[in-house]
């Protein structure tokens, strides 16, 4: 039952917020309580995995591979844990940031619906069930993107939903082929049966279709365009939640499927992943350098950082996979925080166009410091988490003597620093333009609810850098488990495998 709580709690919260439709106050209270309970259940799962290794649960008591299985190994558990942390942070930030109009249109139930989808995708041990969670996530996130219905918001939302629907169709086609080939959808069962399949062409087709479907979700080159065009339009809290978690679901699914189903059988896939990783990094950072809006720069950086994670997956050594896990955790923490800060900066400057912003350092030095921590972490300055994340990726590459990606990663790191400095110069350092009013936006609301999560996440980033050693040990453990699918299979199928 433990493994079902991260899905049941957000759903229950969504139900209760919908039933408390008339009282926004009550909705807020339920929403934050639901987030805290989600985090508590995630901690309980983490503790269970730390104690007993991977755990599995069967819905309805139907044994695998017949029923729907939920599995938590190190990777799933830590992804759910970070989802819980981000949920609490965003929900608290939302206390100040979500307008009553958005709440009346169903902001709270939708947010929790999306959280349920994310947790479900991380935990499920059934590949078709993962498709269902993707759809839960997609539908909630689409409505969240479109809420308010401004024109630019609708444009972004349409691109988002169009590309994600294509991804769903590709995913579903791959599932059809997979089921036709091995006659099972339980991921552990598929992992056992797929190597026995005598049809290399079909396996290759399934492998690449799945990679394409998850690649779209993860926003890799060349299918990343939906991300920068949609993430800068919705309210701050929505884009922060999306920026932290949604693409990472794609990365998770990519790691899980490639490692569990196709581990060493497809060297060409690794070559493709390597190329995709490099191109994603380069195109993402080039886009970021060219942009002039605060959140647009950050959105392109998401794409660029995804490239690093894909590199780790393509190398597929214990060190490389551990670096990818480390990178994912670091990135969720830092990117969500940067979007939070972008929201605060926007309220102060009444705009997110960098050319019309300025003077934030003079007026709000505390905010400037809070910006510097995640920004420098993202750019990879020691001793912050981003430095270690990049270092581990580079080390994995150097160990393999895979020089081109290493060079690309270094150059991209330099450009990342450059564009973070651009944000700093434009929004914080330069003197404000004449027309900038002295007072912040009157809609700024209860500022402390914004500052608390920003401070906590910044503290988390620093702690992540200081305790990089233990986190790396942990990531290595997760990587070891990923590279030995038998552990996963045994957890699900027990003796019958």
């Amino acid at each position, binding site marked *: *039952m433990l493994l*079902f709580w991260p899905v*049941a709690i957000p*759903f*229950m919260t*969504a*139900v*209760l917020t*919908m*039933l408390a*439709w008339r009282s926004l106050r009550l909705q807020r209270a339920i929403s934050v309580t639901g987030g805290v309970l989600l985090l508590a259940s995630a901690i309980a799962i983490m503790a269970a995995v730390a104690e007993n290794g991977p755990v599995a*649960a*069967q*819905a*309805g*008591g139907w044994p695998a591979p017949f029923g729907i299985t939920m599995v938590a190994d190190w990777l799933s558990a830590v992804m759910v844990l970070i989802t819980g942390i981000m949920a609490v942070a965003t929900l608290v930030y939302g206390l100040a940031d979500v307008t009553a109009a958005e709440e009346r249109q*169903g902001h709270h*139930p939708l947010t929790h619906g999306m959280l349920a989808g994310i947790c479900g995708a991380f935990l499920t041990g059934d590949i078709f069930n993962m498709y269902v969670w993707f759809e839960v996530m997609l539908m909630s996130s689409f409505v969240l993107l479109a809420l308010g219905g401004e024109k630019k918001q609708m444009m972004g939302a349409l691109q988002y939903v169009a590309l994600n629907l294509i991804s769903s169709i590709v995913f579903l086609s791959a599932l059809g082929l997979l089921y036709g080939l091995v006659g099972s959808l339980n991921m552990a069962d598929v992992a056992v049966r797929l190597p026995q399949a005598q049809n290399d062409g079909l396996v290759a087709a399934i492998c690449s279709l799945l990679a394409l479907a998850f690649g779209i979700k993860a926003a890799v080159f060349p299918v990343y365009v939906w991300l920068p065009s949609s993430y800068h339009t919705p309210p701050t809290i929505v884009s922060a939640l999306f920026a932290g978690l949604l693409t990472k679901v794609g990365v998770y699914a990519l790691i899980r499927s490639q490692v569990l189903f196709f581990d060493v059988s497809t060297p060409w896939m690794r070559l493709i992943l390597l190329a995709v990783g490099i191109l994603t990094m380069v195109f993402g950072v080039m886009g970021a350098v060219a942009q002039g809006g605060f959140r647009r720069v950050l959105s392109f950086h998401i794409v660029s950082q995804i490239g690093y994670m894909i590199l780790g997956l393509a190398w597929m050594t214990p060190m490389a996979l551990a670096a990818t896990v480390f990178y994912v955790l670091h990135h969720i923490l830092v990117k969500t925080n940067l979007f939070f800060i972008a929201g605060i900066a926007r309220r102060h400057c009444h705009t997110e166009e960098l050319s019309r912003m300025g003077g934030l350092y003079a007026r709000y030095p505390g905010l400037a410091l809070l910006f510097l921590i995640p920004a420098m972490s993202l750019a990879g300055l020691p001793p912050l988490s981003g430095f270690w994340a990049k270092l581990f990726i580079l080390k994995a590459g150097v160990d393999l003597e895979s020089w081109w990606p290493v060079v690309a990663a270094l150059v991209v790191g330099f450009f990342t620093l450059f564009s973070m400095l651009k944000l700093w110069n434009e929004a914080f350092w330069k003197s404000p333009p004449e027309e900038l009013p002295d007072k912040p936006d009157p809609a700024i609301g209860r500022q402390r609810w914004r500052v608390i999560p920003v401070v906590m996440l910044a503290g988390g980033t620093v702690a992540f850098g200081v305790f990089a050693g233990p986190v790396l040990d942990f990531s290595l453990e997760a990587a070891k488990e990923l590279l030995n699918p038998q552990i996963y299979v045994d957890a699900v199928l027990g003796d019958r495998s």
Partner: protein
Amino acid sequence: MNSLILSTATRILMPAILILSVFVLLRGHNEPGGGFVGGLLAATAFALKEKAEGLAAARRALRFQPMSVAAFGLGCALVAGIWGGLLYGHFLQGVWPFLTTGPDGAKGGLPLGSIFLFDLGVYLVVFGTLCGILFALEEAVASDADTGGD
């Protein structure tokens, strides 16, 4: 739409369809049918009402907000899942509080439990969601007609 024939027929058809939808819901327990089909049927009853007597009448007949009905249904399904989870440790496992097993293994009592609660949840979710979509679409059409359309 003001059609005497339609609104008179609706008066008879609507209760008939609603009763049929409950019948299908109950039948689904062991035979073809179930919450999804039942919910669809119930929604068509309200679609008929809406077409015959207008949106306001249909909303009055439903009494609750459609999305609240859907939320309540989702709640029912979740409770059914958690019920089995707390009792037997498996989320969604069937719980039969009224079912008794005799010493000879013969089953007696009332086969009513968490499975039906789940099915009822599906019924309400489908019904509530469809009514919500239908009413929202009708409202959009009505407000377009008011402003001369576009």
